[in-house]
C-alpha cells in the first residue's frame, strides 16, 4: 500500500474506532446481463456505504433485485466488487484502489445461506466440524479441543442430542440451527445471514426470529442480515439500511425508518402509507413548512432541504388517522367511506377522498362506519412525514 490511495484505507480504519466492526465504502458491483451474446451491464450494487457497530445486528432491507444479497456476497468474498472498500475488524478484505481482494476462504466469516446449504452427505456433527477440518494442519486445534468446540456450539443452538443424525433427516428449523452452528463454530468476527428465515413456514419463522435475536444478543456477535421482510428487519435490527435499485435509500434505527421515512420508496416499502401530494407554500424558520395539498393545508417540520415551491409527499400511516363525522362547512380532509373490513385486531376503512384518492385507515375494532357515510380524516400534524415528491 503506497501513496495517497493507501491513506484513505488507513484513514477509514482509524476513523472507525473501537465501536465499529464493519466498514463498507462506495461499493459497486456490475454483472454482465443476458449471457455472453448481449454484453449489457447491469449494476447490482451502485455505490453502497455503511458501517456496522460492534456487536449489533445490521439489516439490509429491500425488494428482490435491490442489491442487498450482492452486497452481502461481496462482504463474504463470493463476489468481487468492481469498486469499493470492505474492512472487517480492522482487516482490509477489499480495497479496489489498492488491488486487494482477500479470497473468500481466508476471510474467516460465518455465513448462513438462504437454502442453509447443509451438506447432505455429512451428519450434524461433521457439518459443524467442516470449518475446523478445513484449517491447515498447523492451525487445526487438537481433537479434544475440536470436540469441545463443536459440542459447545451445538449446545448453543440446541442440537446436542441430534449430533449423529444425518443432516438430511433434520426439519427445516433444525437445518437452520445447524447452519447457524456451522457459521458460529469458528467464532467469526462477523456473521452474515442471507434471508435465513425465508424457507420456513410462518409460525416457525416467528419463533426463529426471536431465537436468532436472542442468540445474537447473548453471543454479542456483529451480524449483517439480509431480508425482504420488513417485520424481520424492524423487530431484530439495531440499524436498517433500506435498499432500492442498488442504492441505499435510508439508514436508521427501526423506529426512524418507520416513523420518518426519508423517501417515497421507504414510505411505500415499510408498512402501509397514505401519500398526499403537495407543494411547499411557505418556508419558515426551524424547518417549519406549510404544505398545500388538494385536500387541505399541513403545518409540518421537514428534515431535508425543501425551499418554497418544492413538490412533496405527505406520508401518514393508516393507524395514525382517526375518522370523524363531518361538521357543516368543513371541506378539508373530507371523503366518504367506500368499504370496511374487520381484520381481527382492528377495523380497516377505505375512504374515497374528494380528489378521487383512496385512503386507508386502521381503527380500533370498536369503530365501524357503514359505507357511504361522509367522514373527515383527523391526524396529528407531527405524525405526518414529508418526503420529496415526484
Amino acid at each position, binding site marked *: 500500500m503506497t501513496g495517497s490511495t493507501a491513506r484513505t484505507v488507513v484513514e477509514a480504519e482509524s476513523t472507525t474506532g473501537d465501536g465499529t466492526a464493519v466498514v463498507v465504502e462506495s461499493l459497486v458491483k456490475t*454483472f*454482465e*446481463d443476458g449471457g455472453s451474446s448481449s454484453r449489457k451491464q*447491469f449494476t*447490482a450494487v451502485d455505490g453502497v456505504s455503511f458501517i456496522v457497530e460492534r456487536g449489533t445486528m445490521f439489516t439490509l432491507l429491500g425488494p428482490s*433485485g435491490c442489491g442487498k*444479497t*450482492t452486497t452481502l*456476497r461481496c462482504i*463474504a*468474498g*463470493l*463476489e*468481487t466488487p468492481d469498486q469499493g472498500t470492505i474492512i472487517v475488524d480492522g482487516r482490509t478484505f477489499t480495497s479496489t484502489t489498492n*488491488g486487494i*481482494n*482477500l*479470497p*473468500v*476462504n*481466508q*476471510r*474467516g*466469516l*460465518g*455465513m448462513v*445461506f*438462504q*437454502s442453509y*446449504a447443509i*451438506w*447432505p*452427505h455429512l451428519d450434524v456433527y461433521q457439518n459443524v466440524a*467442516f*470449518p475446523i*477440518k*478445513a*484449517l491447515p494442519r498447523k492451525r487445526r486445534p487438537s481433537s479434544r479441543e475440536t470436540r469441545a468446540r463443536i459440542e459447545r456450539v451445538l449446545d448453543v443452538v440446541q442440537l446436542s442430542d441430534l449430533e449423529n443424525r444425518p443432516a438430511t433427516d433434520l426439519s427445516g428449523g433444525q437445518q437452520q440451527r445447524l*447452519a447457524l452452528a*456451522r*457459521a458460529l463454530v*469458528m467464532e467469526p468476527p462477523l456473521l*452474515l445471514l442471507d434471508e435465513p428465515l425465508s424457507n420456513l413456514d410462518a409460525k416457525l419463522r416467528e419463533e426463529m426470529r426471536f431465537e436468532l435475536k436472542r442468540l445474537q444478543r447473548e453471543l454479542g456477535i456483529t451480524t449483517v442480515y439480509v431480508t425482504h421482510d420488513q417485520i424481520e428487519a424492524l423487530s431484530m435490527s439495531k440499524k436498517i439500511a433500506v435498499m432500492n435499485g442498488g442504492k441505499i435509500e435510508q439508514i436508521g434505527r427501526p423506529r426512524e425508518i418507520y416513523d420518518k421515512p426519508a423517501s417515497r420508496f421507504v414510505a411505500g416499502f415499510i408498512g402501509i402509507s397514505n401519500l398526499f401530494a403537495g407543494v411547499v407554500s411557505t418556508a419558515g424558520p426551524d424547518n417549519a413548512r406549510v404544505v398545500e395539498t388538494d385536500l387541505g393545508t399541513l403545518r409540518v417540520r421537514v428534515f431535508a432541504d425543501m425551499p418554497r415551491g418544492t413538490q412533496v409527499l405527505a406520508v401518514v400511516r393508516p393507524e395514525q388517522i382517526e375518522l370523524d363525522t363531518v361538521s357543516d362547512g368543513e371541506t378539508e380532509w373530507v371523503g366518504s367511506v367506500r368499504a370496511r373490513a374487520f381484520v381481527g385486531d382492528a377495523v380497516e376503512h377505505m375512504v374515497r377522498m374528494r380528489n378521487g384518492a383512496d385512503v386507508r385507515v386502521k381503527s380500533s375494532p370498536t369503530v365501524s362506519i357503514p359505507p357511504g357515510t361522509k367522514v373527515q380524516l383527523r391526524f396529528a400534524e407531527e405524525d405526518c412525514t414529508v418526503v420529496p415528491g415526484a
Partner: protein
Amino acid sequence: MSTRLGETEQTFAVVSRRTRLRPTSKVVVLTGVVMIFAFLTLVPLGFLLWQTFTEGGALTFDAVARAYSADALGGMAVSSVTFAVGTAVLAVPLGTVLAYLTMRTDMPFKGPLFVAALTPLVIPGILHTIAWIFLTSPRIGPLSQLLAMLPGSPTIDIFSIWGMIWVEGLHLTPLVFLLMAAAFRSMDPSLEEVALASGASLPRVFTRITLPLVKPALFASILITGIRALEAFEVPALLGIPRGIWVFTSRIWRALERVPSDFGLAGAFAISLLVITSVLVFLYARLGKRSQRYQTVTGKGFRPRVVSLGRWKGPAVIFAISYVTVAVVLPLLNLLYISTQRFYAQPSLETIANATFDNYRYTFTHPQVLRAFRNSMLLGIGAATALVLLTAVASWLVVRSRARGRSAVDHLASIPLVIPGLVVGVALLVVYLRVPVPIYGTLWILFIAYLTRYLPYGMRYSSSSMYQVGSELEESAYVSGASWWYTFRRVHLPLLVPGLVAGWIYIVIVSVRELSSSILLYSPGNEVLSVLIWEQWENGQFTELAALGVVMVAILMVLVAVVRRLGARIGIREIA
C-alpha cells in the same frame, strides 16, 4: 441478477496479482485436465488431417483424389445413404411404438417388455450380427427353417443391403426406445386425455397429439440412428463385404487391411465420414438446444396417468411379443443353443440331448480367452475410472466456474461424438506409428482410444450430476475456509458419487463392447473380447464363439441392471 459469479475470477485474480510464482492446486488441476482433453481429441484429428493432406511435407489432395476416383464410389455413396436411411426407417417407428406402449399405455407386461426392449443394448454389435447370420443361414438357421415351412417357402438373404438394414435397425431400436421413453415420460398426459374426451380415436390421438408433442425427440432419434448406422462397422464388414456392398467404414477398413496399408486413402474416407457425421451431430445439437427448455428430465418418481388401450390391447400385446421374440429371444436362444454343441448343426431333439459344456470349459480355461477377458476388464475399468475422475473436475469447470473459455472445454469434450470408432482407430494408428512413443502394440493405445471415444459420455454423466449439486453447498464450504481442492474432494466428489458410479459402469459396458477402434489398434497378445469374437468368427470357431458371447452378454446384463438402478435414482437419461 446473476449471483453465481465471483469465486473463480476472484481466486484467479488473486493468484495473478499476489502469488504469481506459486500456482494454486486449482490452476494446476484444471489446466492439467484441459490439456488431457486437448491431447485426447485434437492430437488424433490433427495427425489425421496432416497424414491425409500431405505427402513428403507438401500439401496434396492426392489421397482424396484416389478416394474419390475409385470405381465404386457412386455405389458406395448410394449404399451408405440407403443403409443409414433404411436403418432409421426401421428403428425409429419400432422404438417409438415400443416406448409409447411401455410408458404411456395400460398394456399388460410393461415391466418385462421394458427390460426386453433394452436387452439388445448390451449385446455387442459383432455378436448381434453373427447371431443373425446363424439364425438365417440357409439350411441350419432356425429362422430359415421356419420360413421354409411357410407356403412358397420364402428365403432370407442376410448378406444384402436389406439384411444389413434389418440387423442394424434391430440393433439400434433400443436406442430409439430410450430416447422416446424419456420424451413420453416427461409428457403431460392431460393433453391426450382432452383429445380422447373430445371423441378422437386412440390412433388419431397418437398421430395428431402425442407424436407432434414428442417431435424434438423423434427428430433426435432419426438423426442419431442415421449417424450410428453411418459409423457402424460390424454389420457392413460381416454382411456387406462378402457381397461387395461397400460403405464408408468398410472402405476405411479395406484401405488399411491390404498390404501395404494406404493411410492416405483411409484418412480421406475417414475425413469424409467425419464431415458427414459432424453435420448431422451439429443438427442434433441445435435440435437439443431448442427442445431442452421444454423437457423436464428429473429424478422425481413422476409417473403420468396412462392411456387405456381398449380394443387395441390385443394387437399391442401381439406386436410386443413378436418384437421381443424376433429381436431378442430368438437370436439369444440360438446363440445359447449353439454354445452347447460340438459342431454347428441344425437344432433337433438329438442335438439338444447331446448338449455339452465343453465350449464353456474352453472359454473359462483357454489362455487366449482368459487374456482377452483380462484385457477387456483392465481397459474397461481403467478407462472408466480415468474418465470419471477427469470429467468430474472438468464438469466443475464447465458448470460451476465462470472462467473464460469454459464452454470451449465442453466443446472439446464433445468432439469425439462426431468421430466414428474406426476413424479414432485410424487417427491413433497414424499418430503412434509416427511419434516415437512406444505404445503401439501395447494395451495403452487401446486405452487412449477408449478414453477418446467415451470422453463425451463421461462428461455427460458428470455434468448432469454437477448441475444437481447446488452452488450454495460449494460456497458455504469456501466461506468455511476450505480451499477449492479441499471443497472439490470433500463436498463435490461425495455428492457426485451416484452419477459418477452410473457413468463408470456405463463406460465399462461400452468399452467391453467396443470393436471398431480395437480392431485397428490391437496386436497379437493384446486382443480384447470383441476382437477375439471377430477372430473366432474368421477361424470358424462358431461354437466357442457362441459360448464366449453368452458369457459376455450375461456379464454386461448385470452391469446394465446396476447402471439403470443408479441412473433412475439420479435422473440421468443414458444414450448408448
